[in-house]
């Protein structure tokens, strides 16, 4: 059994990605295209083909009329950003430390589920880390409830 990573993407036009593109351009970030997908970390001992088949049969994550699935790396590649939710460390269930300040220890068991954003520049190339950082800070990640992972 080992950890495998699968990305599920829409095969139809992605309105959210298009909206993100428009909003990022309005915020002064020069990009020409945005792609979005869901990345799942899955423990599997079978082949990639068997893994993808199991994902495609999971109707909670996959609609054969709308989605495509492929295996991929578990870290963001060039021009990619992984965003995942954090919490509810910040919910009412937080504890308080010895100083009476809110303390966080509780997290959703969602460490292996991400939204992946892929950004492309005017020439169709994947954008630099600097552009990713700007997109992260301007729109794609709210640090109050999410965290982003960028390429090394």
């Amino acid at each position, binding site marked *: 059994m080992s950890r495998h990573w699968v990305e599920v993407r829409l095969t139809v036009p992605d309105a959210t990605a298009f909206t993100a593109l428009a*909003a990022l351009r309005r915020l002064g970030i020069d990009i020409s295209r945005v792609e979005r997908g869901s990345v799942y970390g899955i423990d599997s001992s079978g082949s990639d083909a068997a893994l993808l088949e199991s994902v495609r049969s999971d109707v909670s994550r996959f609609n054969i009329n709308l989605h495509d699935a492929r295996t991929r790396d578990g870290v963001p590649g060039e021009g990619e950003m992984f965003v995942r939710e954090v919490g*509810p460390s910040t919910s*009412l269930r937080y504890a308080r430390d010895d100083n009476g300040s809110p303390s966080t220890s509780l997290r959703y068991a969602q460490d292996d589920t991400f939204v992946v954003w892929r950004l492309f520049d005017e020439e169709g190339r994947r954008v630099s880390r600097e552009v990713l950082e700007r997109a992260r800070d301007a729109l794609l990640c709210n640090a*109050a409830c999410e965290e982003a992972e960028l390429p090394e």
Partner: protein
Amino acid sequence: MASAVAGNLPVKRIAVLVFPGTNSEDETVRLLQLYGGDAELVHWSRSAALPQCAAYVLAGGFAYEDRIRAGAIAAHDAMMESVIDGAVRGKLVFGVCNGAQILLEAGLVPGTEAGRRVTAAFTKNAPTAAFVCKRVRLKLAVDPERSPITASLEAGAMFPAWAAHAEGRLAARPETLASIEQGQHVAFVYARENGTVDDEATPNGSALHCAGLLNREGNVLAVMPHAERVYPQGSVLFESFVKAVARA
């Protein structure tokens, strides 16, 4: 131009913003008018009309289909330029449900740091992220004079409202939560009928049992539950808002 009277107070123009996907604008504008507010709907294509308005209300709904995060796209809509500019200059701004989410994504509340930074969110409910539709009770958690918008309420005022959201849990980094508490940014909390504030009264796992947040200056209020949907008990908050606009 003053066009109506709430009590003996002059009333100024209130804009109820309509983004693509806003769906509570009609009842909101009618309620404001009922209390004597000179309220009008301003759609996203008419953002040029906003600077002349004295106050802004962001109604509930699903602006831009909640794409990326609830309120994230609307927070950067052209209409928000006038709202942000007005808020910085002291105009009153009141967001309900999706409107509250937009105000947080725009960094107008809680405003715990200098400048306009996004430091908190009304995000997915906990322990499950299910949509909550539940009658709740809100309790004023600050001195009414902390904000002009709450100034007409009694200390510790409680009133019913409808929680109708999947993303209403206040979330922030622990240090921000501490600032929110210390700075008296939590305007409203969820409470039981007897006034007890606890987990059971809180339908969404919200930090600090928070149902509504104020900015530092007290002129921007973001409330998740729909008080306008419980007339007349809950709508006292809107009455208080209209009076505040008249006084401003």
